[in-house]
């Protein structure tokens, strides 16, 4: 198995200026990234949506690489996104998935059929032209330049060590350093996108 912080450091060396949606890897990525304006650590707005969100970004910004670090629990809630990605085939979409075989934030209970799902095969079967699976850091390190150097969409399943949280939610330390609003505002500023204005309730952003 890989450690999430280690694989993210490996990826970071190859990031260039890609937009990164770190998903469940956010707690580590925030300490590694040197381009926070291009990071979208969304936390968990609603489980099952990270792949759709990153797909939307990829479609919106075809001139930018979009790299997602999905998780298997999240993807299992929305496997139907895979054929949508495959049909639209955004060449700038790089879909990594952290598979810790459990719901780490709820105490480490296993996801359904935790040790026996071949997510790379699922992605390939849904139409992804390239799909890989790694459970060894050195093999991942040897392959990542080629993975990122060729057009997407590509799916990469990564077996990772669970980081189980058994502390009550209210007692956990927050890894997020910015609110979601701030993350999106920083992203729009970084990419030079127009900032929508809120007029209701007297709050302008």
């Amino acid at each position, binding site marked *: 198995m890989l450690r999430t912080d280690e694989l993210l450091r490996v990826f970071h060396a190859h990031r260039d200026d890609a937009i990164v949606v770190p998903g469940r890897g956010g707690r580590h990525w925030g300490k590694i990234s040197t381009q926070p304006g291009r990071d979208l650590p969304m936390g968990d707005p609603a489980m099952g949506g990270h792949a759709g*969100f990153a797909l939307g970004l990829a479609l919106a910004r075809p001139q930018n690489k979009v790299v997602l670090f999905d998780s298997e629990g999240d993807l299992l809630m929305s496997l139907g996104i895979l054929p*949508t990605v495959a049909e639209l085939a955004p060449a700038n979409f790089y879909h990594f998935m952290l598979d810790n075989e459990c719901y780490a934030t709820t105490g480490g209970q296993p996801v359904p059929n935790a040790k026996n799902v071949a997510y790379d095969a699922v992605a390939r079967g849904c139409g992804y032209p390239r799909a890989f699976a790694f459970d060894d850091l050195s093999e991942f390190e040897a392959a990542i330049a080629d993975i990122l150097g060729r057009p997407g969409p590509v799916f990469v399943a990564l077996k990772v060590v669970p980081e189980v949280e058994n502390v009550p939610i209210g007692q956990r330390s927050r890894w997020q350093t910015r609110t979601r609003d701030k993350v999106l505002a920083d992203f*729009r500023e970084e990419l030079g996108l127009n900032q*929508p204005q809120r007029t209701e309730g007297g709050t302008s952003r």
Partner: protein
Amino acid sequence: MQKTAEGQLSPEVVLAEMTRNGVTHVVWLPDSETNFLYQLMQAEPSLRLVPVSREGLAFSVAAGLAAGGQRPIILIQNTGLMESGDSLRGWAIGLNVPVVMMIGYRGWTRHGVNTDSAATYTERFLHAFGISYYLCESSADAPRISIAFEEAARTRRPVAVLMADEYHGFNR
């Protein structure tokens, strides 16, 4: 081209509302009678269709499109809207996404007596989430779609348009 019967909702009029309001992407899952709208949307070069296989996916996709500077619209049925509650909450409301949702109002009847619980709970669902909505029964109501776009942009919230001509509506 066949003419839309009086009192029905013309798919050309709906499409014109989309283009007038600068829609770039239609994130959608077909409902009962959208075939002709589908054909028109496919033929419209300014639109890109993003098909989803469960309605909840539409909200995170739309959130990503909006974050990237595009202007998506969501086109789903009321049944799927109700399935999408958490995604609507987290991805659309939570991220202040100014998206218009065109919702096929399955089971709606003007006289209020229906035999379809999908209709029974649609407006209650929207009330529960604090979503503003407009009813669109015929082509004469289509300007309400533009009103919904204006409200979504002004409030940075999702706004619904209930397409109440669903059973026969998009057919010409």
